């Protein structure tokens, strides 16, 4: 199963997913230090999804869920390292997996449905609309739920990664003030 060709295909997939993620990320002007991280996460996620789709019988939405879950876990690790909200690099790394083609194919098929007038083609087109539409919705939800499950598990860490207490306390000690402790803010 793991031939050199297959491994090479996975590596190529990782590389092109990383390039795609960088390009789609810069549209939303991310912080400079987050761009490379999101490229790395995209490579891992997309490569892993490619591996799952090729070597197991998983469908595309379950494979996307697992890939997004891995991206979510890694993004929390990186978020703690470089003090950015996790979604700043987990969202761009999901972009190559967004089911864009399925989404517009749904619309195109609907346009074709209005234009067709004989019964058998119409039935075929309905199957097309339904297959593309459900794939879009399921993959989209799988991606977002997959990436946010780790955020819910590590709830308190996720929402305070942009807090830089270490520096705050160092500064406060030099001023002779008591240091601040992490306290859970009352959720409202």
């Amino acid at each position, binding site marked *: 199963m793991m031939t050199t060709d297959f491994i090479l295909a996975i590596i190529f997939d990782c590389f092109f997913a990383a390039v795609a993620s960088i390009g789609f990320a810069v549209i939303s002007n991310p912080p400079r230090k987050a761009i490379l991280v999101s490229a790395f996460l995209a490579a891992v996620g*997309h490569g892993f999804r490619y591996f799952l789709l090729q070597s197991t019988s998983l469908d595309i939405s379950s494979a996307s869920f697992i890939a997004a879950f891995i991206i979510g876990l890694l993004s929390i690790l990186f978020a703690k390292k470089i003090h950015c909200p996790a979604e700043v690099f987990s969202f761009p790394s999901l972009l190559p997996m*967004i089911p864009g083609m399925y989404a517009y*194919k749904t*619309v195109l098929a609907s346009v074709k449905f209005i234009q067709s007038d004989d019964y058998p083609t119409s039935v075929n087109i309905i199957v097309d609309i339904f297959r593309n539409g459900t794939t879009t919705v399921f993959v989209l939800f799988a991606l977002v739920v997959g990436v946010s499950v780790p955020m819910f598990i590590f709830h308190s860490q996720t929402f305070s990664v942009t807090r830089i207490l270490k520096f705050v306390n160092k500064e406060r000690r030099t001023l002779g003030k008591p240091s601040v402790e992490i306290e859970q803010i009352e959720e409202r």
Partner: protein
Amino acid sequence: MDIHSELKELSHFLSDYSTCLMAVGTHTSRVVRNTSRIAQSFGFFADMTIFQKTIIMTLRDKDNLHSYSSVNKIKPMALNFEINSRLSSLSWEAYDERLSLAQIKSRYQEIVSKPRMNKWIVLLLVAFANASFCRLFLGDWQAMSIVFIATLVGFFVRQKMMEKHINHLFVFVSASFVASMIGSIATLYNIGNTPQIALGTSVLFLIPGVPLINGVLDIIEGHALAGVSRLINAALLIICLAIGLSLTLLLIGVDAL
């Protein structure tokens, strides 16, 4: 200073802060959390209702004796994750270091006025991204180079029209039409073995990925109304993209993609 003018001043700032966060593409629960955190650092509480175009916010003191309400318009802005990240940091700084309102305001201005990445670099990177996207859909190198050129031109059209503040739905139809017309060169002249993939992926740079993700995230976090309106907006953009693409298909006479 009496409590009411204090509430009023903070409320003015928080309305700027929250509408800016919302406009640059932060998901709703983070907007609520960051805004209430700054309010708490002054000993107040902020309650807010968020729609696609407005934020309704009431700022009140602990005993609910004094309050200040406002309805704030969300101005359209381009997506910006840097502002998102640094404004989140600012809310923690305000909470931990008890910054004064003047300090927070000056840092806010500094963050918001930071220039974006050079648009020519963005253009080039997006073109490379869409070309490699074409490779992910198993296109060959001829298809990749055609998609590269199509994206370069299509995204340039989008940038130029966005600068002129033309209706964004019309921008999407035009950009997708231009990109897919160039993408269809492969189909017309039978270049390479995968001309269909070149045509199909040439418009994918227009897919509004971040609003789609934000919309679903809002829905599963319970902000259903904000999430659904984000998804409807994203769906509108995808429909516009499909209209541009189907114009091309009509012109070149391809009936299946």
